[in-house]
């Protein structure tokens, strides 16, 4: 990796390639431990500030992590002392809380089982110190509020003969027993209290309950709204609008627009369902709102195209404003062409100018002002081309890898097999392309890699960049483990830190 190409690149001005280091792991597997299906992570998302991270798993749980290094210094000092060059603190997270977001369900009308697996998580606007997020499985989206509540103890009740004053630990159960028994004996208090004529100064013997606030806090996750019954097919994406009041949900054939405060109705804004389902050739695979333009959204399709639509144009946006797709090279068509062209994920860069897309073989970066073709293409799986047949046989070819952009938009990352993920530089002139393994020693693979033709290859063209980057991996027999795939990862919005999921473990790296 630290080959000559950087030395060549450095004077030209592109940013130095990042040196990735292991930061943290949550839910690490011990040797020989079997992964439980329900524990496998199925969604990762940083919030806008990067102070919180959420993961969702196949068991319908959402786990929240919070950043610790910005709040206090104690934890990161040790790392600072250990590192031998002056790098600032890197993001460190700790487990905050978790909650059961979705449960398995059964649709009796359609005789369909609905898995509890969390497909996507999106953070919403924070308010009053409470965290808000949307989580979705195949059918139902839920709006969650996670809030710290101080534990309060109540004392000094009017009716509590058993407890002494100021005891401070009155169990509310005894109160309710007390009041209920009264209700049973004395009838309804509402009725009789109306008959009272209160003395003008009030009744001195009555007192209000005393509430003693303790310093203990309790994190509470409450489901505030459930957006259900709007999707006939499986939801693949949800995305918040910059207006702070709406979001979209996309399934295979339709995209619906919701108001966060209204769960009883949504508006269909894209519908690609043909009149006759036999004419179906293309499905929606992913959709996302523009980060700042409230009226722009992009969605990708199984045919490898990205459509940009303008919500201002019409209520039902079946005609796109812009279409991004790459013309296939003539003569290159094969049985697999269409399958591997399918886009599994799209992401807008933070400034909204670029869209990153991931298909089976590549990552592509598109400029929304240039619909003739991608600005850059990064080969991720080129070395798998000879094996497409096997991949088709074992269904791996349908794996949906996610992709992400760094906050500054200068780098992109995506996952691969054998728990590997790849980071590419996309600033002009850079040739940065790193392969990392989701383990405590991310650069392990690099060591094995003979640094052979990388210099010459990378300098040929920006587009085909280091095609077979890791021939070493290819060569040694154990490398293509199709069962250990790294599908989900997310880049910290402001710093060089990546969170990625290897089965049930969450690995965090920084540079």
């Amino acid at each position, binding site marked *: 990796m630290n080959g000559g190409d950087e030395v060549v690149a450095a004077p030209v001005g592109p940013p130095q390639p990042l040196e990735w280091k292991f930061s943290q792991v949550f839910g690490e597997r011990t040797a020989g431990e079997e992964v439980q299906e329900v524990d496998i992570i199925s969604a990762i998302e940083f919030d806008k500030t990067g102070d919180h991270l959420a993961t969702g798993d196949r068991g319908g749980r959402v786990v929240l992590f919070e950043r610790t290094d910005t709040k206090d210094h104690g934890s990161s000092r040790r790392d600072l002392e250990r590192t031998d060059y002056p790098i600032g603190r890197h993001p460190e997270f700790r487990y905050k809380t978790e909650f059961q977001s979705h449960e398995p369900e059964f649709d009796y009308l359609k005789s369909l089982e609905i898995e509890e697996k969390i497909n996507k998580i999106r953070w919403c606007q924070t*308010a009053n110190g409470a965290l808000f997020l949307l989580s979705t499985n195949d059918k139902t989206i839920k709006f969650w*509020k996670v809030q710290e509540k101080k534990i309060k103890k109540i004392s000094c*009740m009017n*009716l509590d003969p058993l407890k002494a004053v100021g005891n401070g630990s009155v169990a509310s159960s005894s109160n309710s027993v007390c009041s209920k028994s009264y209700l049973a004996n004395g009838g309804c208090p509402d009725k*009789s*209290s109306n008959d009272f004529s209160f003395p003008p100064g009030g009744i001195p013997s009555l007192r209000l309950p005393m509430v003693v606030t303790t310093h203990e806090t309790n994190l509470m996750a409450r489901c505030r709204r459930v957006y259900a019954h709007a999707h006939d097919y499986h939801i693949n994406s949800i995305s918040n609008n910059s207006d702070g009041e709406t979001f979209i949900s996309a399934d295979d054939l339709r995209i619906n627009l919701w108001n966060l405060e209204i769960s009883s109705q949504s508006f269909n804004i894209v519908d690609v369902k043909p009149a006759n389902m036999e004419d179906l050739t293309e499905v929606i695979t992913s959709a996302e709102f523009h980060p700042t333009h409230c009226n722009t959204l992009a969605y990708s399709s199984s045919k490898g195209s990205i459509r940009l639509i303008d919500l201002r144009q019409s209520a039902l946006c079946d005609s796109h404003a812009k279409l991004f797709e790459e013309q296939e090279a003539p003569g290159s068509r094969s049985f697999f062409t269409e399958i591997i062209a399918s886009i599994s994920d799209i992401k807008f860069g933070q400034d909204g100018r670029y869209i990153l897309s991931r298909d089976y073989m590549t990552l592509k970066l598109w400029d929304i002002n240039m619909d003739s073709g991608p600005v850059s293409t990064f080969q991720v799986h080129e070395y798998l081309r000879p094996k497409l047949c096997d991949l088709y046989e074992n269904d791996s070819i349908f794996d949906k890898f996610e992709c992400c952009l760094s906050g500054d938009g200068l780098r992109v990352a995506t996952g691969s097999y054998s728990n590997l993920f790849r980071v590419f530089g996309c600033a002009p002139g850079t040739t940065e392309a790193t392969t990392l393994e989701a383990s405590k020693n991310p650069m392990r693979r690099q060591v094995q890699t003979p640094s052979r033709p990388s210099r010459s290859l990378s300098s040929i063209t920006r587009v085909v960049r280091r095609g077979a980057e890791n021939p070493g991996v290819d060569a040694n027999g154990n490398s293509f483990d199709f069962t250990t795939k790294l599908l989900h990862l997310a880049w910290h919005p402001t710093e060089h830190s990546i969170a990625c999921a290897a089965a049930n473990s969450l690995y965090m790296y920084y540079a």
Partner: protein
Amino acid sequence: MAMIEEPLYPIAVLIDELKNEDIQLRLNSIRRLSTIARALGDERTRKELIPFLSENNDDDDEVLLAMAEELGVFIPYVGGVEYANVLLPPLETLCTVEETCVRDKAVESLCRIGAQMREQDLVEYFIPLVKRLAAGEWFTARVSSCGLFHIAYSSAPETLKTELRTIYSQLCQDDMPMVRRSAATNLGKFAATVEPAHLKTDIMSIFEDLTQDDQDSVRLLAVEGCAALGKLLEPQECVAHILPVIVSFSQDKSWRVRYMVANQLYELCEAVGPEPTRSDLVPSYVRLLRDNEAEVRIAAAGKVTKFCRILNPELSIQHILPCVKELSTDSSQHVRSALASVIMGMAPVLGKDATIEQLLPIFLSLLKDEFPDVRLNIISKLDQVNQVIGIDLLSQSLLPAIVELAEDRHWRVRLAIIEYIPLLASQLGVGFFDDKLGALCMQWLKDKVYSIRDAAANNVKRLAEEFGPEWAMQHIIPQVLDMTNNSHYLYRMTILHAISLLAPVMGPEITCSKLLPVVINASKDRVPNIKFNVAKVLQSLIPIVDQSVVEKTIRPCLVELSEDPDVDVRFFANQALQSSDQVMMST
């Protein structure tokens, strides 16, 4: 504490339950906060209860919503208006919660209290509260603050007024779209309290900023602001400042903004006055009627009549009518449907000649529309048509439309047309009705769908009311009674239902001579459901017919049914017998 006297128990429980684990009990206590306050007295309410509520505001939204509402009417319980300010702190915290409905209620209650507060208290307590909220760290507080300015402003001294205007204009440029939306929504209310001089300068510049916001959701709220501000400004000011905004909104890139203009059009026209409407808004409106987006055309089409009323007939005929013609063949059925529901109102505006010449063809084409809603909308306004052109001209096209709707395969459409039959009958008159529609009414009694049969029975009754018993004897009763021998018991049941509805209209004589024998005959039916329905119908006939008939005919029949092998038949027969006993006793 255990020494609470017996009569105080209920109130003591109520107070304790303010902090119960069970949300229902807490909610109950909060709803009866006034009782608690009266029990504690003014002073302790101010010094203990209100601070208690201020501190305990991390409850569930339902409880907070109830609290916000109760506090709005709490002034009498804290000792009157001079102490109203003690109510502000708990409401202030409620203004910052995340749940919109709680915040809205808290703002509403604050406005209600603020409107009663003494001027010096407003300056001392209310205005600082508004300023604190407007400077809130979280957007929720700032959103709430926008709704309070109109209460605070008028009693503020001059320097504070300037400050409040500045703060409001900052809120209109807040980073959070939610805050800007709230500022845009409340701008009209705030502007109404601002002095005319500042209205023209400060408020108008705030408004202009909002009209250029890049969030569509903010801009479309500014459309409503046009109408509100327009009413406050002098006519010439309005033409100078509001009119251009309306015109540019009507060409906004976002269809949602254009939709708002179309939807608010009448209010906007009112704001700018009839003259500028005629000269400047007609082209805008025509553009909206021809908009690319069907939703906009739907909204615009629905305002056609109201808009034409502002214009004179010449302008309407010249500019609007051609659009209406286009809309009547619009590709969207919803546009045509919206047009059909209002188009009849244009007739009086255009006058008889123009109506017959121009409007009638449109009207007739809508009446033949392939989409049933369009036809139904026309038929529902038939009385208006009748007034202008008379039924003769129409009947030729009307009848096929009605017949087609009556046989529509969607039962809801059939149901809708049945409900218009009495209206049609009254407009068309007996002669026309007998010829064409009588058969249809009978046909519906044999519909496959229960709701239709039910509505048809009701329809028969309403026709009998409309045309009188004599007509019914000739045109309804024989046909209805004919159907008692239908082989399907559900149809026989419909007839029983129709009889029970017709009997009160027809009077005792016809009931005894014509209807009762049929019912008695049905009591021999082999289907138990018919038999217990006979019992029910007989019960309903008892008050109508003469006592002797009850004794001679109805009771024997019921007695027989009360010995039926079927338990339901016996039940309803006995019920009917009991009620006949009661009738006898009372007479």
